[in-house]
């Protein structure tokens, strides 16, 4: 830099300083919005110049944030159905066969298992509780599965079971957040948001990320498990319902017809456009796009969310009851949505928290009933995706936030009225199917009583990395710039589970 340039720069800085002193706070806020907007626009235009092809771009397009985008590499899966059993079902009564544990049934838990450990409810010395289900080997793969899931046993050769999943959170909400957003604290985007941000949505009339809940409650972590965190808000999950209006507040109120609605949305959008011209804030364009999407969804969502048109044999297959808010209906909807090009369908079924404080929460009563409500629809989903030629490109994940202890729960040191188990973070089971996953495999092993991981440890990050990998994303390179640093879903961890990929 020559002497003259340095001089000029100093002069310019001084001039800027003087002019800034004249600004009021209002000026500042207004100008900074414009500055940020033009910065973002500059980034957009910059990438335009480098990519002459109209479709090769993979940046955030504020005018059409849900435009389909290519993955980093060709992924096997195009869409995801993530079935989350909120409350944490017992792995010891479902997937994790522990004959040794039945020998210890009723004995005091050895102190070596309790030293330095913290439990959500167990106090003092609990008794061990043997598996409350019979296990059998199934399919060509000979994987073990309990009799609580008789239908699922027929499709076990399509599933890859992870028997050594582990987490460091033993309370529902943080553990659910960790599973879905990569951190036990609030504020990060969920898996579905990341996926929709990366791939967009194929169907221009439907949201890219749909959430369906059943079991009477939302998951403990609330709506943050499908939130968009620091990603543009258009990527958050859209919660739909299988009973009543599919999306709340989307129906026109009485006296408002579709033309009037269109006119009012056009008017709002016109104002928003003017606002955008002034401030150039891309979030305004997002908002315009969202109004238009909502208008289209008024027609398309009730259509796709209506399961009455499905033939009888499909209803029999899934065990659906139209008009009810139940898990089976949600599973059938998930298939319909995926078929229509929705990228990520997240199902939550609440009520798996089998502490043994009531019959409904007993591992030998309530758990069995919960299983019977999900066994048929999940099996039907895998078979139905298969016969429609969609299983290979649809990744199905079944899991929960953690598992349950091999000890019987003794809340406050007292015997519980029913057989139940406490929260257990160290070892539990999940499974994946379709979407390029190697069927009939099991990965990872817990010890003889299902207390700790012996081999093949899998963390939430590994599952997230694998899901992204199947969709064509390198979880280490798939980032979003926020607050001055690029963020990843898996933060600084995660390895792709190549062992279960075909």
């Amino acid at each position, binding site marked *: 830099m020559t002497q003259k340039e340095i001089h000029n720069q100093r002069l310019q800085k001084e001039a800027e300083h003087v002019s800034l002193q004249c600004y009021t706070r209002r000026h500042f806020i207004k100008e900074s919005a414009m500055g940020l907007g033009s910065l973002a626009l500059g980034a957009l235009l910059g990438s335009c110049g480098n990519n*002459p*092809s*109209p*479709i*090769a771009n*993979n940046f955030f397009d504020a005018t059409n944030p849900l435009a*389909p*985008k*290519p*993955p*980093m*590499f*060709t992924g096997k899966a195009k869409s995801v159905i993530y079935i989350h059993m909120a409350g944490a079902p017992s792995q010891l009564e479902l997937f994790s066969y522990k004959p040794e544990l039945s020998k210890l049934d009723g004995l005091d838990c050895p102190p070596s298992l309790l030293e330095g450990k913290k439990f959500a409810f167990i106090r003092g010395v609990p008794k061990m509780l043997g598996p*409350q289900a*019979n296990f059998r080997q199934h399919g060509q793969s000979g994987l073990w599965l309990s*009799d609580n899931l*008789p*239908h699922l046993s*027929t499709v076990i050769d399509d599933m890859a079971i992870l028997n050594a999943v582990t987490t460091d959170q033993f309370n529902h909400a943080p553990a659910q957040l960790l599973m879905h957003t990569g951190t036990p604290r609030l504020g990060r985007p969920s898996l579905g948001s990341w996926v929709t941000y990366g791939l967009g949505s*194929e*169907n*221009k*009339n439907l949201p890219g990320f749909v959430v369906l809940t059943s079991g009477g409650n939302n998951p403990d972590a609330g709506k943050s498990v499908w939130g968009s965190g620091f990603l543009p808000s258009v990527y958050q999950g859209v919660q739909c319902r299988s009973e009543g209006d599919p999306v709340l507040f989307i129906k026109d109120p009485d006296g408002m017809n579709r033309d009037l609605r269109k006119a009012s949305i056009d008017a709002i959008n016109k104002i928003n456009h003017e606002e955008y011209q002034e401030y150039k804030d891309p979030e305004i364009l997002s908002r315009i796009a969202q109004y238009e999407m909502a208008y289209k969804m008024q027609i398309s969502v009730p259509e796709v969310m209506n399961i009455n048109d499905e033939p009888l*044999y499909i209803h*029999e*297959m*899934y*065990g659906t009851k139209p008009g009810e808010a139940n898990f089976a209906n949600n599973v059938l909807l998930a298939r319909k949505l995926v078929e*229509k*090009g929705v990228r990520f369908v997240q199902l939550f079924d609440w009520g798996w928290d089998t502490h043994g404080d009531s*019959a409904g929460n*007993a591992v*030998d*009563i309530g758990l*069995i*009933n919960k299983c*019977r409500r999900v066994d*048929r629809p999940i*099996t*039907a989903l895998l*078979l*139905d995706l*298969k*016969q*429609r*030629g969609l299983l*290979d490109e649809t990744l199905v994940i079944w899991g929960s936030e953690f598992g349950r202890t091999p000890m019987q729960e003794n809340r406050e040191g007292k015997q519980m009225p029913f*057989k139940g188990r406490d929260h257990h973070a160290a070892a539990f089971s999940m499974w994946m199917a379709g979407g390029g996953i190697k069927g009939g495999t099991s990965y990872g092993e817990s010890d003889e009583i299902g207390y700790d991981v012996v081999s093949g440890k899998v963390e939430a990050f590994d599952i997230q990395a694998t899901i992204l990998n199947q969709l*064509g994303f390198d979880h280490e390179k798939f980032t979003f710039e926020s607050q001055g640093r690029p963020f990843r879903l898996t933060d600084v961890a995660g*390895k792709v589970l190549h062992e279960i990929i075909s």
Partner: protein
Amino acid sequence: MLELIGHLHPLLVHLPIGILLLAILFELLPSRKRYRPLKRSIFTILLIGSTTAVMSCVTGYVLSQSGDYESELIGWHQWMGISLTIYSLGYSWIRNKKGFKPYRKLFSFVLLILLMITGHLGGSITHGEDYLMAAVSVKSSFNLSNVNLQEALYYEDLVKPILQNRCAGCHGSSKQKGKLRLDAPEYILKGGKDGKVLIAGKVDDSEMIDRLLLPPDDEDHMPPKEKAQPSAKEIEILKLWIASGADFKKSVVESNQVVSLQKVMSSKEIKLITDVPEEDVASADSKTINELLKLGAVILPVAQGSNYLSVNLINVEALDSAVDQLSQLNQQLVWLKAGGQPMTDNHLLKLVHLNNITKLSLEHTRISDVGLSSLKSLKNLQYLNLNGTQVTFRGLVQLEGLPQLKNIFVYQTLINREDIGALNKSFPNAIIDFGDYVVPALPFDTIVSRAPVSK
């Protein structure tokens, strides 16, 4: 400190190469008037070049003392380098002497030759002796499956080729990273800087196997991530060899390993059949892409940076024009989803030339047997979804002989399940899915209210 000086050598050597080459180039220029200013600078350039050559010699000597390199090549490289340096110094000194002028070009030519030889020797040390010609020479293919296990010598015929191909590049005669050589029995037994690399009979304690099995991202993983990796089969062979005692003389028969080796060798190497062609393709005409986008088609590269395209017609209303445009993508289109669209046989006729298509979804369209015959030319077709169409057995068998076809979906078509035998004969490599799965009602499906009596 000394190590740092040594490590500067690979950096510094490029200076004399570049600078001296420049001097040579100037020297070889014809003596025209316009080149005179350049000619005048030759002396200075030579002087700078020679100085950097001296520096290269010093750093190179230090590096050679580090012990990672101990080959014949080093000696040659060292002496050639020193002669080059002395020669260039002498040349710059003698150049401006009276009466030397006519020999300048000759001398610079000799300098060029010296420079090339020294440079090549240096390159051979770092990249391996056959690096330069590797691109053109036909490499003897490294194929273990041709080995006759009954006659083979364990080390010589199985283990050695693996070590030669995967390890000896850095642990061989020209380079000894970590002071380790794996190109002859005595070196293998000696081990490297960190001790022995294998313990006969103990696979789990053998450093070599440990390193091979570490995740590729691990710093200690061997071979380094960016180098060619041994196959699972090759690692299995090394493990078996160590388990059997790591003998360098015995034959496979003597080691009693024929059966277990046979098992390893016959296991198929996983060959990926990808649904996107490996060779590159020119990018599609952006006019066609824009046209399709306008018509509402979801058209995307299969991956960032790829010119292969996937198209989903889910949002398309003007199907005729969209299919017309699709036929322009005859090289680029690999996945096409037209499910639920009013596609007819006439539309299929326009897809005849799209012979890179690997996945084609035509479920719930209006196509029939006639249209299917136009798919005969899609030689790369792997996935064909005909669910809910009016195609029959006769229509489908027309596609007999499509070599890659792996998945055919014929749920809710006019094809009868009884024809599965004939279809399996026509499509021996494909899975034909008739669908119609049912989830039977089981007595377990009722709700329980009491704990079942334990058995």
